[in-house]
């Protein structure tokens, strides 16, 4: 039975374009059970090439030292930190979609949550590489952890850089647990459909013997709810702590209280953009139109409009405070960002982050796949430049004698490009071998899932999509 309720504006839009549980299972299981399309192999080859490039360049960096990068005093952080903040920001949409939208009972999230959780994990992996390889003496990287040692030296817990170690590692671990927990029932679905012995064996191990028991579901749902509840402050804390790396230092242009909320908004903004970019591709390649509907994309675009406007407000407020504070160093830092040697980076940042999402005020643009695809890519470029603009503030520091023009080297550039290989490899493996959408959750939001469906046609049809789990 297919209900077309989208035309009636008084009714909730349908979240799934089918009323049949089995069809949902079929649609979502298909990519994992059939041979991957040729595009998949082409993309995998490209990703693996970039991944090996990244590994090679990191090896070169370890061998030669950080001198192969363009970093130098005063710009000691350079691309490594830009890339770190950018990747970790992208990861934030995953947790936002899985946790915050879950708590607010935004049930349309089922179409995109698995996807964005996977994206989070792989993005955090890419992010984590940069601070680690940036330390220079990689062989003593374990010093960042509070481990007893013969020197009796401990990490400095007063430093935001150490908070970052805890924040990012916690974030990665919690995202992975959250993702895996969501996967358990769906892996059981795959297990029960498996035709070959090896496939069944592997899936059976990872599905942990899930048998859909109502007693299990009860604990499972409660655990999921608690995970969502703790992930919500976690996601806000992680990017706040990342922003402390800047805000706690006494550097003009960095030492501002607006940084934590501004970073979090920017992170969600860029994360939504990348989720949508990837979703649009996968929807096309794997034919997920029935479960990833225009309604979902439209909602995501509204989120980008909101967070993009917040980011734009933050830029304006930074400039205002720089002027209003009367502090000449603060004022110089911002004037120099916007009009100095790096004016072009500031220009790209503003046009991509502030202007392009404003197009989403128009419904026709929000619902046009090619335009939204372009805008999401522009947003990701813009957000990378935002971090570049912030980090590069250091190029004109307190001593004019040390001012200079920071340029990345080829190693900087290709290591960054290489992380797309890491991301792409894992993401393609995910698309091919794991359920791309949360099968159990998609079924749960169908009107037919309600135990009272069919008892009273009117009530069941209208409350089915809105009732709690």
């Amino acid at each position, binding site marked *: 039975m297919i209900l077309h309720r989208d035309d009636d504006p008084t009714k909730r839009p349908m979240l799934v374009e089918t009323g049949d549980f089995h069809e949902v299972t079929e649609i979502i299981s298909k990519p994992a059970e059939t041979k991957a399309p040729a595009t998949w192999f082409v993309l995998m080859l490209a990703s693996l090439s970039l991944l090996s490039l990244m590994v090679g360049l990191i090896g070169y960096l370890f061998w030669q030292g950080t001198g192969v990068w363009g970093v130098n005093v005063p710009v000691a952080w350079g691309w490594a930190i830009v890339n770190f903040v950018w990747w970790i920001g992208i990861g934030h949409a995953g947790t936002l979609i899985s946790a915050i939208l879950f708590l607010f009972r935004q049930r349309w999230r089922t179409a995109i949550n698995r996807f964005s959780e996977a994206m989070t994990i792989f993005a955090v992996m890419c992010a984590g590489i940069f601070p680690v390889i940036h330390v220079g003496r990689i062989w003593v990287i374990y010093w960042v952890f509070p481990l007893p040692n013969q020197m009796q030296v401990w990490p400095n817990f007063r430093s935001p850089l150490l908070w970052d170690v805890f924040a990012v590692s916690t974030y990665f671990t919690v995202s992975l647990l959250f993702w895996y927990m969501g996967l358990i029932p769906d892996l059981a679905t795959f297990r029960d459909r498996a035709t070959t012995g090896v496939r069944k064996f592997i899936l059976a191990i990872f599905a942990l013997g899930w048998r859909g028991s109502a007693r299990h*579901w009860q*604990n499972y749902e409660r655990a999921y709810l608690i995970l969502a509840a*703790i992930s919500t402050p976690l996601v806000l804390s992680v990017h706040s702590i990342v922003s402390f790396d800047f805000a706690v230092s006494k550097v003009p242009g960095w030492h501002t209280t607006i940084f934590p909320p501004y970073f979090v908004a920017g992170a969600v903004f860029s994360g939504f953009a990348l989720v949508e970019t990837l979703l649009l591709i996968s929807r096309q390649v794997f034919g997920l139109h029935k479960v990833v509907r225009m309604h979902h994309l439209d909602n995501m675009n509204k989120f980008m409009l909101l967070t993009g406007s917040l980011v734009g407000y933050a830029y304006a407020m930074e400039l205002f405070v720089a002027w209003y504070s009367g502090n000449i160093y603060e004022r110089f830092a911002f004037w120099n960002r916007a009009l100095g040697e790096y004016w072009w980076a500031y220009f790209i940042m503003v046009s991509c982050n502030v202007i392009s999402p404003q197009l989403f005020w128009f419904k026709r643009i929000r619902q046009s796949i090619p335009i939204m695809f372009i805008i999401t890519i522009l947003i990701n470029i813009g957000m990378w430049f935002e971090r570049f603009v912030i980090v590069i503030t250091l190029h004109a520091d307190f001593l004019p004698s040390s001012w200079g023009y920071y340029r990345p080297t080829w190693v900087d550039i290709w290591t960054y490009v290489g992380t797309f290989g890491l991301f792409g490899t894992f993401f393609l493996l995910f698309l091919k071998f794991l359920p791309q959408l949360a099968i*159990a959750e998609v*079924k749960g939001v169908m009107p037919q899932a309600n*135990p009272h469906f069919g008892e009273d046609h009117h009530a069941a049809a209208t409350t089915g999509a809105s009732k709690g789990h």
Partner: protein
Amino acid sequence: MEKTATPTQPKIFGILAEFGSPNEVYKAAKKVRDQGYKKWDVHSPYPIHGIDSAMGIGDSKMGWIALFSAFAGAFGGFSLQYWVSVYAQPVVIGGKPINPYPAFIPVTFEPGVLFTAFGCIIGMLVLNGLPRLYHATFKSKNFARFSDDGFFISIEARDKRFNVSETRKLLEDAGGRNIEVLED
């Protein structure tokens, strides 16, 4: 009681019945509950809203496990920082106090979250008796549909009220199909 199986006879695990829709299984669950069964279960592809009350099972204990884990993590995180900064290595860095407790908030919060996450997933598995790769229900070929579009009720032979013919009749009357007696 059917439990008195001779050594040559395989032990009975219980009875499994299939239902056509969430509505049917929901109504059947109420009937099984009202008959006073305790060791039984509903199996569904997704969590059915309100099935726990229809089955008469109490609230989940997950909240307590999570709360305990959160406090353990936060306490551990703060204690570590306090011990390092005040006892193990009391060094003044950047002119900050020896015990700058506001600066310890992030590393108190993060381990709290980390421990809660582990508490949730491990607690959920322990409460559910998972991982358990073997279960008698998996012997039923039909049961594989629970993860697709099938809704099942299984009543275990361990239950005091269990009786093969009576229990079977109860499930039949409640609208169960493909009723199977499963061996353990």
